[in-house]
């Protein structure tokens, strides 16, 4: 049996206490929510925090409020199953409902939280492996084993001087497409920022937040006629992470003309990839015919995955435009 390394478990009662603990303990500590990402990584010794600050006892992180009309607030401690079952999410923020429904599998849904999903570690074929495997490959920059990060290259693109590990969470692309914001609370206060600004284009430091900051809430704007969808490419209908996630959200005039559009991809870069150009092409037009062809070409230009997830790079590039087009077609009908 794979075992967890030893650590100390801290169980704060409030968010304030939790952030204070995190601030005091610094990088040696990590928040523990559902643990479905963190604990397997610790068993494989990808991460070895000496302190885990459990968020499970924090009532402030439970539940939701609001409505599609006023905007919806989902707190970070909601499980994915709770999010998927939330009536407002199902009716007005479909991309999110669909995204969490195709995350992992139904048992993990009940354990994993929304906050954990948004802070999910980036993934890579050379990183999400056991300790023995990574030692055999000679480690890599993101998890350099006994070495310092400068001493070991990235195994995917050795010359690049950076880590290309992939943002593979399903929740983030959907929420970004839906225009969500997040509320962070840290030891020195709180801030609200657009969700896309939480992410950095770096496989190692993939979140733009300090270690003591917690994601406490996700704020969805009023739905206001927004229609959205999420598609996921993976080899199997359950368990697998996204080799590609496509979130699309549009607002259309009664005649079908697109008033606004957001397209976001997961699984292709170290952060959720917002497709500005492709999305702008459909604005003022209807989701059909030539426009979709133009969108496809724009997607093809924008997507440059690295060879570090399931499926070949070539395949992911070829099919990304197909899936974006199909997402838009689904919204058109």
């Amino acid at each position, binding site marked *: 049996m*794979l075992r967890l390394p030893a650590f100390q478990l801290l169980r704060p009662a409030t968010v304030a206490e939790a952030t204070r603990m995190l601030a005091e303990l610094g990088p040696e500590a990590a928040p523990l929510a559902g643990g479905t990402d963190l604990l397997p990584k610790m068993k494989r010794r990808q991460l070895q925090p000496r302190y885990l600050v459990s968020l499970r006892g924090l009532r402030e992180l439970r539940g939701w409020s609001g409505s599609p009309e006023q905007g919806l607030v989902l707190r970070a401690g909601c499980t994915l199953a709770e999010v998927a079952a939330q009536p407002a999410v199902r009716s007005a923020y479909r991309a999110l409902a669909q995204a969490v429904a195709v995350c992992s599998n139904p048992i993990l849904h009940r354990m994993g939280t929304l906050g954990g999903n948004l802070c999910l570690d980036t993934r890579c*074929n050379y990183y999400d492996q*056991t300790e023995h495997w990574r030692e055999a*490959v000679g480690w890599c920059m993101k998890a350099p084993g006994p070495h310092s990060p400068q001493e070991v290259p990235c195994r995917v693109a050795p010359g690049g001087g950076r880590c290309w590990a992939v943002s593979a969470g399903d929740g983030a692309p959907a929420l970004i497409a839906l225009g969500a914001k997040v509320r962070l609370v840290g030891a020195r206060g709180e801030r609200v920022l657009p969700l896309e600004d939480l992410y950095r284009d770096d496989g190692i430091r993939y979140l733009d937040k300090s270690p003591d900051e917690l994601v406490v809430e996700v704020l969805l704007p009023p739905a206001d006629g927004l229609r959205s969808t999420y598609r996921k*490419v993976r*080899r*199997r209908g359950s368990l697998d*992470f996204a080799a590609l996630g496509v979130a699309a959200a549009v607002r259309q005039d009664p005649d079908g003309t697109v008033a606004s559009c957001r397209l976001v991809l997961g699984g292709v870069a170290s952060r959720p990839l917002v497709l500005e150009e492709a999305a702008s092409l459909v604005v003022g037009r209807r989701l059909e015919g030539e426009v979709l062809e133009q969108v496809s070409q724009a997607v093809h230009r924008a997507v440059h995955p690295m060879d570090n997830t*399931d*499926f070949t790079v070539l395949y992911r590039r070829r099919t990304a435009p197909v899936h974006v087009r199909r997402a838009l077609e689904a919204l058109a009908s």
Partner: protein
Amino acid sequence: MRVLKERERVWNVVGQRLPRVDGWAKVSGRAQYTDDLSLPGMLFGKLVRSTHAHAKLVSVRLERALQLPGVVAAITGRDVPVRYSVFPVGQDETALAVDKVRYVGEPVAALAAVDPYTAEEAARLVEVEYEPLPARMDLEEALRNPEPRIHEYGPFGNVHRLASLEFGDVEVGFAEADHVREDLFFYEGSTHAPLEPHSALAWWDPGARKLTLWTSHQGPHYLHRGLAKALGLEEHQVRVVVPAVGGGFGGKLDIFHHEVCAAKLSMLTGRPVKITLTREEVFYAHRGRHPELLRIRTGVKRDGRITAMHVEAYLDGGAYCSFGPATMLYAGTQQPVTYRIPHYRFQAVRVFTNKPPCGPKRGHGTPQARCALEVHLDKLSEELGLDPVELRLRNLTGPNELTVNWLEITSNGLRACIEKVVEASGWHERRGRLPYGRGLGFACSAYLTGAGGSIYYSDMPHSEVHLRVDRSGGVTVYTMATEIGQGSATAVATIVAEVLGLQPQDVSLVTSDTDLTPIDLGSYSSRVTLMVGNAAYEAACRVRDLLFEAVAERLQVPRSRLVARSRRIFDEANPQVGGSFAQAAQWAEARFGCLATSGSYRPPQKLGTYKGSGVGPSPAYTFSACVAEVQADPETGEVKVERVWVAHDIGRALNPVLVEGQVEGSVHMALGEALMEEQAFRKELHRGPSWLDYKVPTVYEMPEVITFLVETEEPRAPFSAKEVGQGPLLCVVPAILNAIADALKVRVDEVPATPERVLKALEEQRKGRTGRVGPTKVPPFSFPPPERVPRPQSWEEAAQPA
């Protein structure tokens, strides 16, 4: 063996949809698997594994590990230097690498500690120094680079074994053909992935000087022999016990490192030692499907009759022998069992590479060649303008014939199988009329009901059973037959219950314990139902004879009128004259003393005398046919198998529920091999030794399965019951590939047929080239001239002009 003369009766339990005898224990969580066991004072063992694919082992230092408090013992290859293997010809493994390592994951040291945390920590402290050698990661590389050799044995370079056989004269056969076609096919390796990781608990009793090993294993007998050898013990000093096994599929048949190491560590410490593999380690233990390249050339008459066939197989064996010599020969044995091939040449080579050893996986050695053949026949039928089913029908073997390679077919229900699936799938009405993207594919296959030869030569029985009836009426059957989920316990209990007029759950089973149970060679080659079944049948008949004799005497009834049914033995003409089974047992015990009988089974002598003829013969063959229906997405290459019709010639189903379960499980495993599973490597490492990265299909990929059981009379099988554990897998893989071809009009001559490959074939087609992906050449290698084997007389006679 006694003549089985009871075929025309109505059975009490045979053929009934009864619950399996181990159902209660398993569903209640009470069944004990090896890792569930613990003993007082038990230590936890851990293997340290190589991080190099090919390297000289300069040193393995244990000092730092041994200094960690709680570590009790540690060993290296020097402590267990004896070479062993299940195969007499391939004694090439040691429990820990001695002077070199041959794959990433090969164990180099082992240790035992007071708790699992300490064992894991100590493993990190073992210091290993390697001197890397170039690693050969596939067939082509291994053949192109004979030096440095991976092993110092084998004919030359990295060639492990060779076969080159010719039955009849293929040149003559090809000359007779109106049309000749050649195809190449590649079948990727895959692994068994049983849900239960391998586990072994060893206990050396220093007083009795005896080792007991509880282990999750499917061949305790071969393990027993191998362990004794590896540990330098007499065989009678070793006892192997197999608790419940959480899946095997061929992956728990070898002698495994952790078994020998747990034993050795227990001998050194005098304490019980348990080693359970992690999921990653199960992928390194492997012994799964060989990656295999095949070239098939077939000559046919205009009407589709085969005149000659030449099969070349290139097997990537991984780093050790395992069951490789048999795997290699199996690549050539089964083609003539489904189709009449008047002239047949088979050539094969198994090559060493620096990967975990390949070995026997469900269908052992036959799925690769079967798949290549069935795809090849599909293309041939296209060229001839014949329906693929029709082409097969024109070449079908029948019952009671001898194949060109000297295999004796007795019962043969292949034609009926074909008719079933063709009709049920609406083949003739629907094929060719489905919209683009949807397709139907067809294939046939055959498999052995038990290997006719044992792995080491002997003229002793392959299966033996002891049976005891006590004065309470209790019946206990002692058999080494190993239940790995396939249902062997239920099969044996059903047979004994039928003979004695009991219910299967009335029969107690003592299984898989080399001290308590008489020999059975193991749960492989689908041999248990037939071989152990026949032995159990014999033992049960013998004890029934005693019971009948005693009852006849007591009640003054003619013996011939007695029957055993409904837990009684009575006069069939006058049913109230009789006694309960327990009463009969008491009368018989009073009359004869202790009621214990035995039975044994030895398969028929093989008929071929050529080198390699030991692989392929079986007392009886099963036959299967499959139609698969797929929906394929031409833009993404994704394939969904929607429905699978499988008909299987089972002889007779002892228990249809269990038989269907084997068919359904085979479809699932075949689906994985056809579309997604790959034991593939990234440079020198397994690509992803985990459930996330190794793509076993989930419930969402499973198609609807429509199973037909075709019954045939098989005189050599107990109650006619033939195998089902492996055969139905074989035809499903090619049926899926043929369905993809029907759906998209492109060929994926390579499994798994991943979306990437399907899309690539479509792109080739779009560019105006042949819509095909797959191998285009064979590695640089020339086979030695074939050994000419005379054909059986029947074939020579058939060849005479009338």
